[in-house]
């Protein structure tokens, strides 16, 4: 078990700058999830930590040791691959024992460690099977067992659940979470699925274009996204964005005008910004409230999706083409074709400038 420190890490492939100045501190025993769209560099970052790729610039430390130039086996890391990458000609036991054998452990130690790992992952019955005789979930567990058997200080997961079907994915997600509670070891997990990120992580690192967009707990990322990218990436269905214009504003709050809603008073700090500045108003689907209306500014309900426990209502603004989504608990009284007005709750609105940065919100009244 160990902490991991990334200090201005860079990775360049030929002319492509894949990882740009990443700073990150991962605490001992933390479960950290790297999340982002494909091509954002999250897998590369994991491979840099594993030692499968060389670091172009910056310093990587595991515990107190700088490991930039250490090969993977000396870094004390174990890795679970997306395709499992089990050795097809070896039994489950041999797969898990391979690393220990190469480390020249004694026969007793190998057996003891493999059996202990197998017990944790409930693989005891399968030890003599070959990978081709296992189901997807079992292979996944063997892949984890192989990574764990050498008792690495850090466990790395590279999109481990993306090859599984939906129900198995939920089950394995649960198992990984329980495994982390039980082992208490440092884990770094890469996924493009924000649900996996939200449910597993102590700390989420959102990556975009090789940079860290935001680091924080799932709660922080959901409640206080620092950029428009994070706001749009975390949460499903995704946050609604509406063009807005700043009317007046200072450090204590501001007023913005939005087509179809009118003027709103918001607690965001708009000091140093000029009137008429173009902004983007962000509101999560569950924070939109609807009221019956008939005026010129009304939105038309174009579709209602019933999901059993909740209902998604799609709204079309008069002059826009981006649909807005409203989420509420079922049953819903809204129907297609109705015209409604939006009543946003100022406490749950987000404002972003044209560069995509969030305007910081003044502390809420409860805190004052």
């Amino acid at each position, binding site marked *: 078990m160990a902490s991991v420190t990334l200090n201005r890490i860079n990775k360049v492939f030929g002319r492509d700058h894949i990882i740009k100045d990443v700073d990150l501190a991962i605490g001992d025993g933390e479960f950290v999830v790297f999340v982002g769209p494909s091509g954002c560099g999250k897998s590369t970052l994991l491979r840099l930590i*594993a030692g*499968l790729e060389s670091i172009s610039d910056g310093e990587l430390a595991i515990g107190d040791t700088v490991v930039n130039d250490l*090969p*993977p*086996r000396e870094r004390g*890391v*174990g*890795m679970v*691959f*997306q*395709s499992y*990458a*089990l*050795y*097809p*000609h070896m039994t489950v036991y041999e797969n898990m024992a*391979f*690393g220990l054998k*190469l*480390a020249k452990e004694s026969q007793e130690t190998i057996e003891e460690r493999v059996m202990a790992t197998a017990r944790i992952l409930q693989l005891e019955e399968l030890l003599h099977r070959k990978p081709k005789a296992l189901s997807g979930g079992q292979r996944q567990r063997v892949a984890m067992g*192989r*990574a764990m058997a*050498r008792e690495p200080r850090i466990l790395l997961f590279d999109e481990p659940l993306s090859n599984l079907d939906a129900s198995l994915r939920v089950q394995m997600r649960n198992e990984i979470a329980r495994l982390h509670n039980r082992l208490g070891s440092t884990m770094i997990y890469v996924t493009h699925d924000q649900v996996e990120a939200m449910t597993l992580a102590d700390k989420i690192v959102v990556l975009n274009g090789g940079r860290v967009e935001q680091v924080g707990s799932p709660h922080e990322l959901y409640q206080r996204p620092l950029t428009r990218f994070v706001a749009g990436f975390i949460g499903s269905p995704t946050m609604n964005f509406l063009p807005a214009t700043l009317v007046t504003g200072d450090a204590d709050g501001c007023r913005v005008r939005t087509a179809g809603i009118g003027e709103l008073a918001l607690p965001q700090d708009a000091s140093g910004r000029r009137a008429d500045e173009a902004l983007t108003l962000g509101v999560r689907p569950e924070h939109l409230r609807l009221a019956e209306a008939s005026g010129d500014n009304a939105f038309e309900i174009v579709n209602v999706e019933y999901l059993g426990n909740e209902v998604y209502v799609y709204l079309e603004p008069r002059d826009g083409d981006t649909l807005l989504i409203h989420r509420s608990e079922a049953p819903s009284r809204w129907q297609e074709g109705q015209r409604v007005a939006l009543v946003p709750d100022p406490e749950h609105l987000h404002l972003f400038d044209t560069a995509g940065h969030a305007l910081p919100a003044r502390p809420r009244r409860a805190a004052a």
Partner: protein
Amino acid sequence: MNRYQLTKLAKRVGFYALIAVVLVYAIFPFYYAVITSLKPSSELFTVSYWLDSLDLSNYVTIFSEGSFVRAILNSVIVSLSVVFIALLLGITASYALGRVRFRGRGTVMLVILGVSMFPQVAVLSGLFEVIRGLGLYNNPAGLILSYTIFTLPFTVWVLTTFMKQLPMELEEAAIMDGATPWVTITRVFLPLMWPAMATTGLLAFIAAWNEFLFALTFTLTDDQRTVPVAIALISGGSQHELPWGPIMAASVTVTVPLVVLVMIFQKRIVSGLTAGAVKG
């Protein structure tokens, strides 16, 4: 019987007739060699397609000559050495060419392919100089060297193609487990590459076993010769007699091991040759 059934029957008859033609065409020469080898020399020149009696005297003749037995031994040593060396070099080269990214990799592959295009005659005199220079003239080692040159390109190409198909993550998993490249090759890749190795190894074996031109050129004395040359040089009682019986007996003797080997490995050969043709 109506017309439809008639056509169906005609098609079936035609099909089997065609197969029969192909079989006769392919097998007849070998069949004739086998029955010739089993006839006493007095009956050799009467044409008959069946064997009336079994006569093993031709086999007794060739095996009583020490030089033929010696030639078989030489062939076995040469062919097995060629297979072993070609596979060892082929596997290691294919790891480098299939897995390690370096500048000029494509060029190296093309040069290897280009070398294999040369006919044997073209390099014969040059190779003769090399072998004399190395002091390997009239020595099986000279044959091993020259056969390996001609076998390696094919071996390297097939094994490289095969190596490229093995998932990258498998190698990375081995690296994470602390394996060196040598351990990765021998303990992870080798067990997965048996089909390809059986194919290339067998083809290398057949090529070395049947090779004639180099074997004739690079050896001088009876005790260094390989089987194809030894058969060609079997002589009869006089200058004017070609001893067909013993020649056929010797030919059958050296062909049977090949047939057996191919039978044993046939499934693997097919899977090895088609590996990479389709994703599977």
